[in-house]
């Protein structure tokens, strides 16, 4: 069973603010989902390797070269930022 405290803690880790009502609701729903996945504990997986991707390749390499991007695409990407100045993305001071 996941506690209210734990819900608050992970919401903080995930940078999501919850109202007290949402905390209660998510606590209940997460508990029910976690209860459902409990089933996985029945299996002995001590000798099993984990799968991260269902593809059969590893170490996809290429030459360490830079490719010039289309300056218009760059411009448009910066334009998509909610706050910007002179081609830079603006944010709140962190210090």
């Amino acid at each position, binding site marked *: 069973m*996941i506690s209210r405290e*734990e*819900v608050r803690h*992970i*919401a903080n*880790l*995930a*940078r*999501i*603010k*919850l109202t007290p009502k949402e905390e209660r609701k*998510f606590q209940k*729903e*997460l508990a*029910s*989902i*976690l209860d*459902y*996945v*409990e*089933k*996985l*504990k029945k*299996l002995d*997986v001590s000798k*099993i*390797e*984990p*799968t*991260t*991707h*269902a*593809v*059969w*390749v590893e170490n*996809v390499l*290429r030459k360490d070269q830079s490719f010039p991007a289309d300056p218009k*695409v760059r411009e*448009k*990407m910066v334009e*998509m*930022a*909610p*706050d910007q100045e002179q081609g830079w*993305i*603006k*944010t*709140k*001071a*962190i210090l």
Partner: protein
Amino acid sequence: MIPSNLTIARAHQGLIKKEFSAVELCQAFLDKIKKEDKKIGAFLTLNENQALLEARKIDDLISQKREIPILAGIPLAIKDNILVKDLRATAGSRILENYIAPYSATVIKKLKSQGAIILGKTNLDEFAMGSSGENSGFFKTKNPRDLSRVPGGSSSGSAAAVTADFCCAALGSDTGGSIRLPASFCGIVGLKPTYGAVSRYGLIAMASSLDQIGPLSKTVEDSEILFGAISGKDPQDSTSLDPKIFKPPKEKKPEAFKIGLPKEYFIGGLKKEIKEILDFTIKKLKDFGLKIEEISLPHTEYALPTYYIIVPSEVSANLARYDGIKYGRSKVKEKIKNLIEVYFKTRQQYLGEEPRRRILLGSFALSSGYYEAYYLRAQKVRTLIGKDFERAFKKVDLILTPTSPTPAFKIGEKQDPLAMYLSDIFLVAVNLAGLPAISLPVSKEGLPIGVQFIAPPFLESRLFKIGKILEKI
């Protein structure tokens, strides 16, 4: 007059035989969308002017008697989590309500290189999280076959657009059934390709180790045409693969295919209408001369719990980027002192309930003290699920299952998140194992129901072969 229910193949014939022009074809779909989409809600954005402009170019080519590719002038709909340059891409989320794609996804570049026409962007469950189409941040899409029911999700708008005849075909994405479930609920064909067969570059990521783009179409032939157009290795997606690295087995005639029925999929009993349609399909295949045998996929019951650890974990990482700084809706310009408060308030206001639920679940499964018990364990069970299929495909060429445990349900019927997750019970194992699978419509009357065929990696060709047989018999 443009004939109704045009497939890609039929529309191509119409264009080259000059039964109608590309502009007329495009206009006919746009008119129909404008007239009828209010009650269905398939589209989030229409691309009217650009679509007509591009159709005109195709007409020029035709009038110059130039040979045109099969997709030239063909109007398609695109799920709104796939980027089309200069068009809005919301992924069904309010947080991306104002986001204009600065570049196109690789699949879009490939379609456009053939001259395909993008009619617009279709609705979806927010960030492709949902099984019904009800989780969109904008509005619910309805099932064109019965407006009181859901179309299935998360590629809800793409499935509805194909079913309502708003386009020839559409692209969707499938992380745990998001192409196949709506295809089943709407009575159309939906293909989830092998993981790595289609580039994910320009697909807004949900769960990166599972997401694949694929076609929703009126026929198996169209599914094959679109898959052929969008697949292939892409240097922009290091998980995309050249199918040639697999030595394809010597293919038998489709009449000699052996089909496996996994017994675990039938434990606990199926709903009567699903069982009937499956028995009917099995009988037809047997009459055609195909061999059907029972197989076992012993870890089937663990697929959905595994999926609901792995997906939220990847979601919590992928959605960290929606912080109100780089793009999308934001609180950064409001009078807030700290950067961290910008994150908190932006994500609280603009991310919907299901994305937040999955972010929380994933953050929990990955957090210190729980990582091994949940995430690592799920990844190990994922290995076992993959091995089940490997073993099964030593005995049979294809696996047959129902696509969904029920036909399309009523809008508002499933309020509990876990009950909604169970809609994908027959579908998620395929994504965990990275396999290709297709949902084919089999019911001729009543609410549509699909059956699913699963093939070994990179053998989509087998799915098309069996699909064409089933269309005929």
